[in-house]
C-alpha cells in the first residue's frame, strides 16, 4: 500500500536543488581541504620556528631528531607501565616462614597475659 503511494516527482529536483547539492558538497570539501592544507603545513611551520630558535643557540646538541611512530611510543609506554605498576607480579611464588628466635617478646611475655590478674590473687 505504501509502495503504491510512492510517487517519484522528477520536477522536484530543480536547478535550485542541484545548486544546493553541488555547492553544499563543494563547500564541505573546501572546508576540509583548508584544514588539510593548514595541518599539512603545520609541522613545517613549527619546525621552521624551532630551527630559527636553534640557530640562535650556539651550543646545540648535534643529536638528530628521531621521529618515533605511535606504535613505538605505545610499546615504550606499555613497558614503563608494566615496570612501574605490575613488576610485583613477577615475585617468586614460593612461600617460606622466617624463623624468629627472640629471647623476649611481649607476645610471649607472662606479664601481659590476660589472666594475669587472677594469677595475682
Amino acid at each position, binding site marked *: 500500500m*505504501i509502495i503504491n503511494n510512492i510517487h517519484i*516527482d522528477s520536477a522536484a529536483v530543480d536547478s535550485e536543488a542541484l545548486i*544546493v*547539492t553541488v555547492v553544499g558538497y563543494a563547500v*564541505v570539501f*573546501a572546508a576540509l*581541504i583548508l584544514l588539510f592544507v593548514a595541518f599539512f603545513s603545520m609541522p613545517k611551520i613549527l619546525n621552521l620556528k624551532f630551527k630559527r630558535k636553534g640557530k640562535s643557540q650556539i651550543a646545540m646538541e648535534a643529536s638528530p631528531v628521531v621521529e618515533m*611512530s*605511535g606504535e613505538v611510543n605505545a610499546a615504550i609506554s606499555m613497558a614503563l607501565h608494566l615496570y612501574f605498576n605490575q613488576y610485583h607480579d613477577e615475585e617468586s611464588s614460593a612461600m617460606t616462614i622466617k624463623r624468629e628466635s627472640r629471647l623476649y617478646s611481649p607476645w610471649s611475655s607472662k606479664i601481659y597475659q590476660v589472666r594475669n590478674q587472677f594469677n595475682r590473687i
Partner: protein
Amino acid sequence: MKRFATIFAIIAILATLHSLVNQAGANNPNADTVTVAQNSQQNTDSGDEEVSASVFQGLKKFWMYSGFKNAKIGHIIMIIVGLIFIFLAIKYDYEPLLLVPIGTGILIGNIPFVTLEIGKTMGLFAPDATSGLKLGLYEQGSVLNYLYYGVSQGIYPPLIFLGIGAMTDFSALISNPKLLLLGAAAQLGIFATFMGALLLGFLPSEAGAIGIIGGADGPTAIFISSKLAPHLIGPIAIAAYSYMALVPVIQPPIMRLLTTRKQRLIRMRPSRAVSKTEKILFPIIGLLLTTFIAPSALPLLGMLFFGNILKESTVTNRLAETARTSLIDIVTILLGVTVGASTQADVFLTSQSILIFVLGAISFMVATAGGLLFAHFMNLFLRKENKINPLIGAAGVSAVPDSARVAQMMGLKEDPSNHLLMHAMAPNVAGVIGSAVAAGILLSFLL
C-alpha cells in the same frame, strides 16, 4: 511488592463481593429487613443501588482512563519496536548507551492514555477544556514536554558535541591530514539523500533534514530536523540512531563489494607522533576555519572544538572531565528517552516515516560507498609506500567510533596483524566535522 499485590487483590475482591452482595440484597431482602418499616427499606435499597451504581461508574471511569481501553494496534507495534531496541542493545551490544534510553523512551511514549480530544468525545473532560492529563510528550505542560524542549529547540545536540570534543583525540587526523578528505567524501550520502527525498515528494526543508541521516550523526540529525522539519524529528532521529547502531551490519557487505582482497591487505605507514602544540592548535584553527565557512554550524562545531580545547589545553582537566563524563551522560539520557518518547504511534506510524527509514538506509550505503571510492581515487595519486587502505574510507561516515571499528574488524579478517583502527579514526572524526559543516550549509540554504 508481593504484599502490595496481595493487599490490592484482596481490596478488589472485597469491593466486587460488596457490590454483588448489595445486588443480591436488593433482589432478595432477608428476614431482618422485613421488620424494618417499608419507607426506610425503600430508602436503604435506593441508597445501596446508588452506591453500587457509583462503584460501577467509578470502575467504568477507571477503565476509560486505563491503557487497555485506549490501546490501538499502533501502540502495540511501537511497544514491540521499543522492546526490539532494548533487546538489540542488551543481546548484541549495538550502541547500548543509545538504544536502551531510546527503546525505553519508545515504551514510555506509547503507553496509551486519554488525550484531550479523546477525553472530550468520551465526556471525560469538559467540552471547553484546554488541557488534558498533561501526560504525553506533545501535551503542553507535561514533564516529558519540558524535557523534550531540549530536543525541539536543538539544545541537547551542541551539549553532546561538547562532550564528544572533550573525549576525541584528533592525533590520528593531525598526523595524517590527507585523511580529512575521506571524511568530506563520505558526506556524499547527505546530498544524495537530499536529492532522493526531493524526488519522493518531500519539501526541500524536509529533504534537507532527512538527508542529514547520511551524516551518520544523531545529534546533528536532531539539530537540523529541529530547525528544518520539527514534525519529522522522531522518525529522523530514530532512523539516524538505528542505522548508527546497525553500522556493523550495513557497512561490511558494501566494503567487500567495493574493494579487492589485495586492497584490503594494504598496510599503512604508522602515524607520526603529534606534538602538544599541534594538538592545541587543531581545535583553534579548526573552529575558526570551519565556522567562517559555515557559520550556521556554529552551535555544533563551536561546542565540538571548545570541548577539544578543554581537553588538549591540559589546564582545564576538571571541565574536560565533566564534559566527557557527567554532562554527556546526563544529556544522552535526556536526549535518548525524549527522542524515544517522541515516537507516539499516532505521530510516528505514517507512510512518511517508512520512506524516511528507506532513505536513511540508502544514505548510509551511499555515504559508505563515497568514502571507499574516494580512497581508491586518492590512491591513484599516492606513492606505493603512502597508499591508503580503502577500508578506512568507510569510516568517513561519522558514526564514531563504530565505523572505525568496522574498518579495523574488516582489516583484521584479511590480515590479523594489520591494525587499521587508529588510521580509521582520522576519517571518522573528520566525518563528524564534515557532517556538521554540511548541516550548516543545508541550514543556510533551506532555513
